[in-house]
């Protein structure tokens, strides 16, 4: 699953740690999501969408989602 967390975070001028604090997770978790090593839970995806003020689909690109 691809995502644009990094570009959205940078656009907002936030560090990974600051975004982590906003969403209630660690800096490492944000880094792992940005590098595509970890797919977040629906709760964290929702928290990220709230932080970025957009929908989950705008942040995460579900590959093979049309199957």
């Amino acid at each position, binding site marked *: 699953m691809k995502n644009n967390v990094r570009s959205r975070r940078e656009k907002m001028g936030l560090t990974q740690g600051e975004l982590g604090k906003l969403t209630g997770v660690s800096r*490492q978790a944000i880094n792992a999501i940005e590098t595509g090593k970890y797919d977040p839970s629906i709760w964290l995806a929702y928290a990220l969408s709230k932080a970025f003020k957009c929908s989950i689909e705008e942040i995460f690109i579900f590959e093979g989602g049309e199957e």
Partner: protein
Amino acid sequence: MIKQNKLRKAYLIYWTVLSELYGITMLLSVPFVRNELLQIILKISSLAAIFIVPIFTYAIYKWKSRDNASTSDELEQNVLQKSSATTGLTALSLIPFLILFAFRLSEFAGYFVLGYAVIVGGVFKLGTFYYYKKY
């Protein structure tokens, strides 16, 4: 905002108590070891575990809390789940060998149990380290 938890503090207490129990158990087993060199090694390592592990565990806890939120987040839970699964699989796979060797060579049963504990504990620690590094 995801709900905060106190799991990290709970882990700190759990690991400290468990390590102390390991150390005390090893110390209590020392008089029953026949080899003198092994007695000394066991005594030193158990005393070291009793005194050093709590300090070491607390230092890791403080280090993690400084960099991360004080809560244990889902990535950390994911890492712990994976390392626990790896440890469980290793522990279960080694049990037949433990039983066989403990009965077949019963005079060394204590050493086999100690070796088993070291392997299982080591797999958990290395697994946790590996998965943390992976993410």
